[in-house]
């Protein structure tokens, strides 16, 4: 067992971090969140030039030929800076449903996607920012035009919409459609967990920066244990969630039998860790943490979005309980075709 990033993976992480720190500092994120458009459509071309849109596409399609772990590394950094663009929707969610021609278009930055997996008129992430939507209808996956209405979203950096029509070209049918839909669910839960870890880490750092410099009663407030210890708790929860999120990403990258339990465990733990980290940071920041001017509310809203979307923590825990052979009251979040394996290559070692 070797639970560490490879030198190449660390390099990708460092590249993403330094690019995004310059291009999307907190001030720019806040400015975009308050703007009418809500995001910077030109940034999509830059993501394409960096190779982030074709991380997992084969080199023959203009991609880097890597996998979901590397996509997860990018997602963590995008979550860290609250990037407002349909990366999660396109790469984490829609990609498995796309054929080679469409994947090549995504890799080049020429097409953005989202998906409606629940019901055709259910909430679609970033509907106003994409060119096409994968829609699950009956036993098919369709490619549908993004015509629809905007729904209210707590997080302006990640909008929601509803499709007006679900008519479109068929991408997959039958068992193949069910298998791909299930993978899309698991990738979505895992990607949300990874994003949550990236955001929670940043929001913890906001509190630490403040507690080191803000003085009351003649001392930095971070020297008071009543301030410091809740931040230590945020650190513990974020690290535990990070382990789960990367476990889930690794499971998906090798088609492991634990992919489903890992994705639900990670989604539940990371969403809660993110929400709590935000709440502790607001408290540590004091009055300034309650202002519009402080960036923390943007993180809090993303955290609440992640917590609520695609199954709440309690529903994912109910799903974990089912995997553990228990019979919960709570209705659980099930991926379509949950009884099928993602792939038979690897077998469970945990449980």
């Amino acid at each position, binding site marked *: 067992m070797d639970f560490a990033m490879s030198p190449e993976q660390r390099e990708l992480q460092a590249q993403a971090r330094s690019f995004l720190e310059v291009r999307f500092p907190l001030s720019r994120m806040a400015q975009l969140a308050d703007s009418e458009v809500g995001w910077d459509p030109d940034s999509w071309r830059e993501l394409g030039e960096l190779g982030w849109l074709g991380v997992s596409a084969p080199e023959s399609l203009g991609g880097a030929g890597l996998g979901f*772990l590397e996509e997860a590394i990018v997602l963590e950094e995008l979550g860290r800076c609250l990037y407002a663009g349909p990366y999660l929707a396109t790469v984490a969610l829609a990609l498995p449903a796309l054929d080679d021609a469409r994947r090549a278009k995504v890799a080049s930055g020429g097409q953005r996607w989202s998906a409606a997996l629940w019901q055709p008129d259910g909430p679609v992430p970033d509907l106003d920012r994409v060119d096409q939507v994968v829609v699950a209808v009956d036993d098919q996956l369709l490619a549908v035009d993004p015509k629809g209405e905007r729904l209210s979203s707590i997080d302006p950096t990640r909008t929601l919409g509803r499709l007006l029509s679900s008519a479109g070209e068929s991408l997959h049918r039958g068992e193949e459609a069910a298998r791909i839909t299930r993978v899309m669910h698991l990738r979505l839960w895992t990607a949300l967990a990874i994003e949550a870890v990236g955001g929670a880490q940043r929001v913890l750092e906001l509190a630490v920066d403040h507690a080191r410099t803000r003085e009351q009663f003649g001392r930095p407030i971070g020297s008071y244990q009543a301030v410091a*210890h809740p931040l230590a708790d945020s650190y513990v929860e974020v690290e535990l969630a990070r*382990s789960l999120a990367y476990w889930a990403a690794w*499971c998906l990258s090798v088609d492991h039998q634990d992919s489903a339990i890992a994705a639900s465990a990670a989604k539940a733990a990371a969403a809660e860790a993110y929400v709590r980290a935000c709440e502790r940071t607001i408290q540590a920041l004091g009055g300034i943490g309650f202002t519009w001017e402080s960036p923390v509310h943007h993180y809090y809203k993303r955290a609440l979005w992640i917590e609520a979307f695609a199954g709440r923590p309690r529903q994912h825990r109910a799903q*974990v309980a089912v995997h553990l052979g228990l019979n919960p009251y709570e209705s659980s979040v099930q991926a379509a075709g949950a009884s099928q394996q993602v792939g038979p290559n690897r077998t469970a070692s945990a449980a």
Partner: protein
Amino acid sequence: MELEDSAEEAAFRTQLRTWLASNLPAELSGVRHRLKDLDRARSWSRALSEAGYAGLTWPAEYGGGGAPPALDAILLEELAWAGAPQHIGVIGLGMAGPTIIACGTEAQKRRYLPAILQADEIWCQGFSEPSSGSDLASLRTKAERHGNTFVVNGQKVWSSYAQVADWCILLVLSDPQAPRYQGLTYLLLDMHSKGVEVRPIRQLTGDSDFNEIYLTDVEVPATQVVGEVGQGWGVAMTTLLHERATFGFSLTGSLEASVREVLRLARERPERSRDLSDSLAQEWIRMQALKLTAHRSLAETARRGSPGPEGSLIKLAWSEANQRVTKLARELLTDLPLDDGHWHYLQLRSRANSIEAGTSEILRNIIAERVLGLPRSR
């Protein structure tokens, strides 16, 4: 990134399981009073030593297995899952030995290491004192130098295995005038010396895992100093770092064994477990997260060469998880008598988890100061 055993690790695990199946006496598995039957505890420890499972990661030149820490992680995990009792020389193997290897003289290495490996000599730890718990550096057990001998007077407390130990890693105040941290010295004390008295502490469980050690005019030769006189604090920190690095997988392994047992009991009680399924799933998730984090920390340690302060998070999160799991078990087992002799005991025992080997308050301080970089609280 690879989250499954490598071929070498899988082979080691299989071999170990086979060995445990035929060598772990059924009557020892899950035994609560670890020293109730000293002869049996010794023979179990010797069996572990003879099979090469003691000192697995020690350098081969000192008689160790020279194995990578990943195999030690598997060993501790498998022993915990099997409910195997601790090696009686756990303080020697996990704390005294690694400290002597890191800071001791050649003569000390030759004298002490083989007997630790062969389970011939048992070690205990004399760090804490009645007035020096979390604030270890304030300790007052004095060592006065008379020529080539230190004369030690004072009292130590919370020493596991002291009632059966041959040797003690002892932290003493050798220079009361020196600035804090600079007047301490690290000694290897012969527990059979004149003036050493051990008194067991009766804990709230009724058991006596821990002892007090009274030291009255105890003579310790100057050759028993580890490192330099006055530099005992640094040597003691080496010991404590090893405590956290080595015991992490015993902790997560025993937590996993408890969670599996609670889940087994829950599946036998479908009605009761429906009410508790959210908590049951939550505890499984936390256990899994903790285990994965221990593996992540191990991989980081391998890259860095020594364990880092983030190991504190494992001890902190483990103690709280263990306390919750014992409560959850008792909430689940409404059909058992109030004192079932097992979970009841575990719940009482678990209260020490957040105190022993670093209180949760101290661990949060360590995280706040050394990991997050917050200003010191004192």
